[in-house]
């Protein structure tokens, strides 16, 4: 054979070889896309998601905090990017309902720490029913009607100033805190702080759950009133003032903030109350009108997967909801501290009572009376 025919042969065969190897690799990679344990037809969702190309997430979780999760998701599913919109819970609600009403583009995944607002949106028919591939690994309370999913399990802690609060005074439970305020009011007047239920949806939720969990909750609230508790709407404002000593104890603070703050500020200490510890969750759902429902499904499943939850717990400082994730900021970690006293807030219609004006105003009226010590 001539040199020319050799060259032709090479010119023909080499690219074919590459193409063959390439397609084998892609095939292998495509097969590797479906995570272990998922149904075989999950591949269809992945392919459809890649067609969609982008998932729009509306979330109240800070973008910087969650960026390791987003990066891991994009690495796992190349071809699907995340457009992450960081909003506060009121903005998220306002924007979502207006966009849905206008028929405009809106978020595909809605992920918010305002449990009652999320449940309302789902109850109003805005959620896609989708049985997550990770459903079996979640606790029962974290899945409502296969529409709303609890992605985290954040305990509410009591935060205190390590420098200025004597070790004997540090309350280990709600009952301890009540006793402390009743026996040492002079030391703690004006020094306790909590969320304001009138101005903060989070505060309202926490206090109503306290009332449901503990018969003496109103006594505690009256003690708050007698010691002139200072009420705020922002966790930063509260923790700054506890760290500086302007206040001494902060009540019902999200464990994730307490842990994050403790790492940076040696003055901050926290305790999970051992009579009962409320556990709240950041609820996620897929919009029924999502433009990218498959990409949304991928994202939701990733958030609930062991990989995603491990990143949430260890890099984003958010408490993982799954039982099989290791670390301090996990359901396991909480169980190690308070055992079976962890009391998750149920994600269901009962939260809607919070949003009925008459009930809400009645609670607030009683609260205001308690603030006067009555």
């Amino acid at each position, binding site marked *: 054979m001539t040199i020319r025919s050799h060259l032709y042969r090479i010119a023909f065969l080499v690219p074919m070889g590459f193409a063959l190897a390439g397609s084998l690799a892609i095939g292998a990679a495509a097969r590797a896309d479906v995570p272990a344990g998922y149904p075989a037809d999950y591949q269809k969702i992945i392919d459809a998601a890649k067609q969609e190309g982008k998932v729009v997430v509306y979330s109240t979780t800070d973008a910087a905090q969650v960026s390791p999760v987003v990066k891991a998701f994009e690495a796992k599913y190349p071809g699907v990017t995340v457009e992450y919109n960081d909003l506060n819970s009121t903005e998220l*609600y306002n924007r979502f309902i207006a966009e849905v009403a206008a028929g405009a583009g809106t978020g595909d995944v809605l992920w918010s720490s305002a449990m009652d607002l999320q449940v309302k949106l789902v109850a109003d028919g805005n959620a896609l029913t989708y049985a997550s591939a990770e459903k079996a690994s979640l606790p029962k309370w974290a899945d409502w009607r296969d529409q709303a999913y609890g992605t985290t399990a954040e305990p509410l802690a009591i935060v205190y100033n390590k420098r200025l609060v004597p070790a004997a005074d540090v309350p280990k439970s709600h009952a301890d805190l009540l006793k402390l305020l009743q026996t040492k009011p002079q030391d703690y007047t004006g020094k306790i702080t909590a969320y304001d239920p009138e101005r903060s949806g989070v505060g309202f939720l926490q206090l109503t759950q306290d009332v449901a969990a503990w018969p003496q909750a109103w006594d505690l609230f009256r003690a708050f009133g007698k010691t002139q508790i200072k009420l705020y709407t922002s966790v930063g404002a509260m923790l700054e003032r506890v*760290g500086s000593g302007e206040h001494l104890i902060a009540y019902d603070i999200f464990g994730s903030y307490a842990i994050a703050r403790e790492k940076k500020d040696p003055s901050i200490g926290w305790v999970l109350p051992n009579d009962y510890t409320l556990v709240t969750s950041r609820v996620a759902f897929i919009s029924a009108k999502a433009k990218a429902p498959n990409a949304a499904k991928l994202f939701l499943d990733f958030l609930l997967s062991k990989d995603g939850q491990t990143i949430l717990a260890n890099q984003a400082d958010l408490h993982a909801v799954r039982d099989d994730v290791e670390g301090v900021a996990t359901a396991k970690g909480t169980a190690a501290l308070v055992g079976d006293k962890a009391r998750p807030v149920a994600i269901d219609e009962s939260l809607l009572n919070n949003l009925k004006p008459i009930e809400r105003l009645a609670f607030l009226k009683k609260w205001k009376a308690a603030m006067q010590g009555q």
Partner: protein
Amino acid sequence: MAAADWTTAPSAGLGVAFLRVPAIGIAMVLVLCPILLVVYQSFLSDPFFTPSAQFTLDAYRFVLEDPDFWRALWTTLALAAGMTVIAVCIGTVLAFIMVRTDVPGRSFLEILLLVPIFTSAVVLAFGYVVAAGPVGIVSTWVKDVIGVVPWDIYSLPSLIVIAGLTHVPHVYLYTAAGLRGIGSDVEEAARIAGASPFRVALAVSLPMVRPSIAFASVLVFFLGFELFGLPLVLGDPAQRLVLTTYLYKLTNILGTPSYQLMAAVVVVIILIAAPLVALQRRLLRDAGRYVSMRGKGVRIEPLRLGASRWLALGVILLWALVTVVVPIGGILLRSFVVSWGEGVHLLDVLTLQHYRELLDYPNIVRGILNTLGVGVIGGAAAVACYTALALAVHRWQSKWVRVVDYLALAPRAMPGIVAGLAILWIFLFVKPLTPLRQTMFSVWLAYAVVWLAYGMRLVQGTLLQIGPELEEAARTTGASDLRVKRDVTLPLVRNGMLAAWLLIFLIFVREYSTGVYLLGPGTEVIGSLLVSLWGTGAVDLVSALSVVNVALIGLGLAVALRLGIRLHA
């Protein structure tokens, strides 16, 4: 006044009408849309886009029967009035010292004077808490020296004083723009007659810029209604509500945001605003008295103060100490420590960790660039529009001028929380605008409409100083009205335009709530980054970012002022 009438004789050609009608028409439509939507919402039982919404007066009933609303209203009125008095007294004196005298160090002081405008209010308020709060650094020093802390940063008088001092720059900019146009002849005459510099200021120079001062007072009073960050941080611990924080409370009090209640409060604010504008128009009725740019050339020379220079410098530095050094120092300190307060030895807790963390924060650089873009380019575009509008109503004897005057202030009567919502609704439900929603243009439009009155009035203040004879001279030589405005009036208001551009730049850089629903990944600005960080409780990162923000803007300002964006002719 007869001279003024002369230039608006019926033979005023079509040229100006071409400018006037579209400029005013577009402006009024843009201004009215959000206002009318909010007013409409106030009479409904549910969000206007829900099918079940019905006409009802329940929203007004709820608000007017709520004792918190009345308390918030009185507090706001006290706050706005108090801060206007403080800001005007100090601002006018500072403007006179800076512009008309030979006080030393003017270029450096100019930057210092503008710092409060471009610092986020929440951050500034927190700086005060760190520096002068109950366990603040300054408080602890004072306590060590005299045994007690003589002030309570959370009281109403403190809030009024801080609000007043931080709004001095607004009054300064308006008054300074006006003062730069006056010739020195009248002041020199007063000095020759024996008046002290202070007397000259009070009796001669400042009265000549009464239009600018009147505009500035009304606008600062409005800003008092719009204050949110300061009363939030400094009023929270004492449960003191102003109208904006009351609105914030209304957002959450019923669980789901109740737009009709918020709208009702905004309508009440607008009703309070109307008499203010009427007052302002009354004050400026005899506009002819304030003309200072005449056909004759003027010489502008700084007034020599002699030994009083140092006193004057001292006054400015004292203001700067309380208004800039104390809170910014507080933030600066917070950005370098892990912990502060009672029992903390500051030297033990110094760290650079927060700045390192800040560098890792995603999108910081993009946010800063977006902010500067909106401020510089957006600001210039906005000022061009404001000038067009100001020229359109200049020397126009028509009752529509009154309408424009009232309507221009209306968007700013809506506090940021509501303005942001209204803007979102406009961009969502007005179909032609929908494609623009997720671009920076929508953010610019929102800012430009809301701050319309501010920019326009800076230019108007300068316009009122132009003597009609200059324009008449041009008309006599055959120029058309449009030509007169372009070649004569426009160059004369250059001061006003530059001052407006500076103010608008600083305001746009700080703005956040108006565009909150239009921002998204890729269009974030420093304001949104700060709020995001604040929401996670990362006050240390907020402090670090604010320090970077103030340093960058200050540097940019210094460069601009040095390079020749001089605010005087």
